[in-house]
């Protein structure tokens, strides 16, 4: 025994006899390396097991359908989110609150209903802030009380003219929001028509929706054609930009006679001197009509959303974010898509409800260039369409030249995959990857919502594209699936989900979990049937945010359980033919 130990001892002594300066150098190197690893390691933004199982499936499923999937915020057995939980001032903090509608959102904007006392609320000035940007001009801040006055004036004017369905044909603007809120206060139903329509489509849409009034930009609508085409049109209100106000827009073209009453927005506002308080009655506010249209000029689906649909969606969008990430008074919100999309509108309402600063740019639309649209502002939160995100991704990717930039991009991708963001490390300061320059102050953007419209052939964003967008914008990116009859979104990815490679590279990334205002199930179709291996079928959405209670999306979502993750491949069936295969993952 002793001999073996002696031999071992002699061997080790012989080994260590070769210790020289290089050995000391290597040992110091190892110690420094371990020290740097210990110093540099951070926790991931969220626990990876929380990402592995996200939406909750019910334990029982009906034959011919899959289990019902819900957000963890609204587990099975509890009700889905029905509204905003508006509490009157002075109510105890943990009281339930009522559902609320657009009127309560405006009352929150003006400060009549105060912001809840919240550790994360930030310092609110008492009201939300609304600003507009016009092209290359300065940013103008609007006084909330002035806007209240405009709402009151326009609402009273339309009420006096017995308007029941008012078509709003405006780009994103303060007048758009004022008309929308006026509808809720003064009992008429706004019809939100996407801007930039060819005249024939506009007339057709006005006839289909049965509009009896129209609010439009002066000069954007040929009044004689529209008045002849739409027999029920009774009153028209022109909004005029400041530079054109010297012209007289009151004149009515011949042939219309006294049928249509034409007024001008700014003249109405300056003339009215009567009572300017917003009505306080609590009877049910009328519905808001949205148009789901693939592109201007194409036929549109007319969707009637009740006030509850909208407030349920807004409430669900607010609570979908974890508390440290929610919209707060310190945020600057930029809607990069039109207000005629319910997702953008509900997020804007959520921003107003949280007393953020909302910056409205009239060029906002489905395919804008985000860098140009945010030239004058520094948004912290933005919502864009999938086309804008794809464009941003493509232009920034082509601008990456040089292997150093590619290497920096690769390193940041690795950090993202390990679950951490922001990705500023010592190495990135030395060698920063290519970033997209959004906003005047780089790095302010912290959250980007990307909305995918189901059934509209929007460009797919794969999980790698989303990961690249996170690096380019240095912000968290949320990918949402929106549909015609669902207010807000059907499903949204987790804000901390930075995973890549979960879905095939040229197809849509997964869409995460349903919002807490809807529940999703998959119904068997001819080609896709749910089995014990996994759910497959047509996506059916139901809940308080869905117009009519329940709707099918017209696209198939299938689940395939592949290793540890559930995937749902969405096959779009258009009139019996399968088109491209899209992927939709709902992780369980």
């Amino acid at each position, binding site marked *: 025994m002793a001999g073996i130990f002696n031999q071992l001892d002699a061997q080790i002594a012989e080994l260590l006899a070769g210790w020289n300066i*290089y050995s000391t150098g*290597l040992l110091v190197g190892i110690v420094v390396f371990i020290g740097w690893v210990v110093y540099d390691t951070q926790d991931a933004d969220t626990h990876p097991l929380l990402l592995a199982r996200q939406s909750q499936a019910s334990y029982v499923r009906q034959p011919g359908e899959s289990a019902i999937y819900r957000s963890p915020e609204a587990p099975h057995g509890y009700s889905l989110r029905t509204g905003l939980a508006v509490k009157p001032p002075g109510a105890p903090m943990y009281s339930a609150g009522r559902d609320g509608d657009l009127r309560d959102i405006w009352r929150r904007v003006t400060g009549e209903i105060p912001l809840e006392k919240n550790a994360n609320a930030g310092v609110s000035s008492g009201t939300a802030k609304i600003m507009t940007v016009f092209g290359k001009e300065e940013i103008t801040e609007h006084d909330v009380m002035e806007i209240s006055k405009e709402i009151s004036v326009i609402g009273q004017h339309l009420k006096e003219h017995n308007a029941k369905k008012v078509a709003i044909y405006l780009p994103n603007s303060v007048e758009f929001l004022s008309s929308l809120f006026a509808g809720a206060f003064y009992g008429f139903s706004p019809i939100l028509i996407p801007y930039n329509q060819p005249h024939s489509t506009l007339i057709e849409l006005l006839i289909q929706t049965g509009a009896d009034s129209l609010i439009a930009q002066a000069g954007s609508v040929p009044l004689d054609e529209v008045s002849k085409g739409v027999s029920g049109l009774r009153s028209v209100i022109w909004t005029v930009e400041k530079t054109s106000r010297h012209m007289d827009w009151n004149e009515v073209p011949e042939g219309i006679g006294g049928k249509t009453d034409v007024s001008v927005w700014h003249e109405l506002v300056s003339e009215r001197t009567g009572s300017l308080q917003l009505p306080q009655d609590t009877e049910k506010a009328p519905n808001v009509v949205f148009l789901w249209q693939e592109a201007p000029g194409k036929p549109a689906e007319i969707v009637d959303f009740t006030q509850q649909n909208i407030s349920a969606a807004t409430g669900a969008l607010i609570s979908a974010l974890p508390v440290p990430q929610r919209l707060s008074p310190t945020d600057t919100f930029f809607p990069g898509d039109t207000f005629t999309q319910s997702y953008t509108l509900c997020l804007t309402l959520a921003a107003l409800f949280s007393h953020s600063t909302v910056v409205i740019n009239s060029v906002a639309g489905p395919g804008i260039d985000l860098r140009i649209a945010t030239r004058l502002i520094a948004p912290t939160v933005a919502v864009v369409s999938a086309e804008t995100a794809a464009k941003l991704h493509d232009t920034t990717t082509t601008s990456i030249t040089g292997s150093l930039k590619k290497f920096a991009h690769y390193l940041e991708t690795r950090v993202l995959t390990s679950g951490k963001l922001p990705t500023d490390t010592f190495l990135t300061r030395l060698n920063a990857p290519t970033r997209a320059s959004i906003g005047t102050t780089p790095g302010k953007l912290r959250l980007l919502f990307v909305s995918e419209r189901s059934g509209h052939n929007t460009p797919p964003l794969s999980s790698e594209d989303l990961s690249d967008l996170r690096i380019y914008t240095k912000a968290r990116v949320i990918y949402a699936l929106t549909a015609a009859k669902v207010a807000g979104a059907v499903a949204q990815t987790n804000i901390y989900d930075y995973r890549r490679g979960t879905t095939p590279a040229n197809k849509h990334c997964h869409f995460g979990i349903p919002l807490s205002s809807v529940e999703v199930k998959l119904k068997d179709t001819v080609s896709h049937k749910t089995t014990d291996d996994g759910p497959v079928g047509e996506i059916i959405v139901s809940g308080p945010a869905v117009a009519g209670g329940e709707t099918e999306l017209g696209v198939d979502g299938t689940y395939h359980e592949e290793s540890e993750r559930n995937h749902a491949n969405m096959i779009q069936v258009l009139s019996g033919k399968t088109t491209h295969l899209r992927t939709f993952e709902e992780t*369980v």
Partner: protein
Amino acid sequence: MLHRASPVTPVNLILLSLFVFLVYLRLKPAKPQTLPRAPPPTVFRTFTPPELFPYNGQNDMPVYLAVRGRVFDVTAGRNFYGPGGPYANFAGRDASRGLACGSFDEDMLTKDLDGPLDTLSDLGEEQFEALRGWEERFSEKYLIVGKLVPVGSEEAKAAAARK
């Protein structure tokens, strides 16, 4: 005479390989964390009494019982309703009368499985009260996995046609 220290010694090689190994561990992409697969959801089924009968916990079957047409999965309460438990008579059967009257006797169960279901028409108000209480407890505690219909009814024929 100054000997130049040679970089290639056994100690150096060991230390170098240790260094390379540590760097490799650091740079290796992490395997994504996974959760074991959840059991697939139970399919809601329309049962007739003969079909419900095997679900009494024997032969590794789950334990089901029916209360007023709704079938509950009481496998979690196997100690009570499973084989050898005090209420084992209820397993795989229509337990409505037994729960209403508070008795576990054999004569509380419908003898003829192919016949019509027990209509409970001769029960009094307080027995219905007891039954409702039991049903509420069951709804809160156990999962509803099916409904019970008599043999030969329209629903039974429709369910058989669907299979």
